[in-house]
């Protein structure tokens, strides 16, 4: 079956350090992989995505790496700030003919230590 999972359920990082959040997936047929951030009491918010034919994509302070050989996805956050404290979800998007379906992983909680 399809599944997206995370190696670490919680992660604590010192402010200013870089954070790396990892994700393993089992479905090779996904077209895109996506990272969402969910702050306490709020809904998930899109951060960045990567197409399955790419291996790296950079955004503002974030980089997503995709290793299809080992079915591994990671989100790197540079110079982590207190505002980065949240639960991070990796998700896979499978495009179908008439609709897309996003499957979320279980989430990693990131805590930034001031």
């Amino acid at each position, binding site marked *: 079956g399809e599944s997206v999972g995370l190696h670490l359920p919680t992660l604590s990082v010192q402010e200013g350090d870089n954070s790396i959040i990892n994700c393993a997936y089992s479905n090779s047929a996904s*077209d*895109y*992989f*996506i990272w969402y951030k*969910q702050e306490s*009491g*709020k*809904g*998930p*918010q*899109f951060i960045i*995505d990567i*197409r399955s034919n790419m291996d790296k994509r950079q955004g503002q302070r974030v980089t997503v790496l995709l290793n299809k050989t080992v079915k591994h996805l990671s989100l790197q956050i540079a110079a982590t700030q207190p505002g980065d404290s949240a*639960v991070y*979800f990796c998700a896979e*998007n499978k*495009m179908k003919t*008439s*609709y*897309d*379906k*996003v*499957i*979320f992983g*279980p*989430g990693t*909680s990131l805590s930034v230590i001031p």
Partner: protein
Amino acid sequence: DTAVSQTPKYLVTQMGNDKSIKCEQNLGHDTMYWYKQDSKKFLKIMFSYNNKELIINETVPNRFSPKSPDKAHLNLHINSLELGDSAVYFCASSPVRRGAAYEQYFGPGTRLTVT
């Protein structure tokens, strides 16, 4: 200028009752979703509508019935509520696929507690 709004934000009710959660988006998106997030933060899709047409219907008890009066609204009605229905329910919307992973915009969530 709220993009995706849900009402109510909190809902406490007793087992056996029937309740509804409303969702509205002002982004002009064609597709709307309902997700359930359990106490462990696991987020699972329940339903998806595209232009008022049901396109995703996951394995959800038929006590849950979505209704989309127009493409800006997607409501969720739950009959005969059970303890296991306690969760946070998120509504989301997204534009028509543009050849890229489309970004889903989530509402603030409705925390449902069944006692």
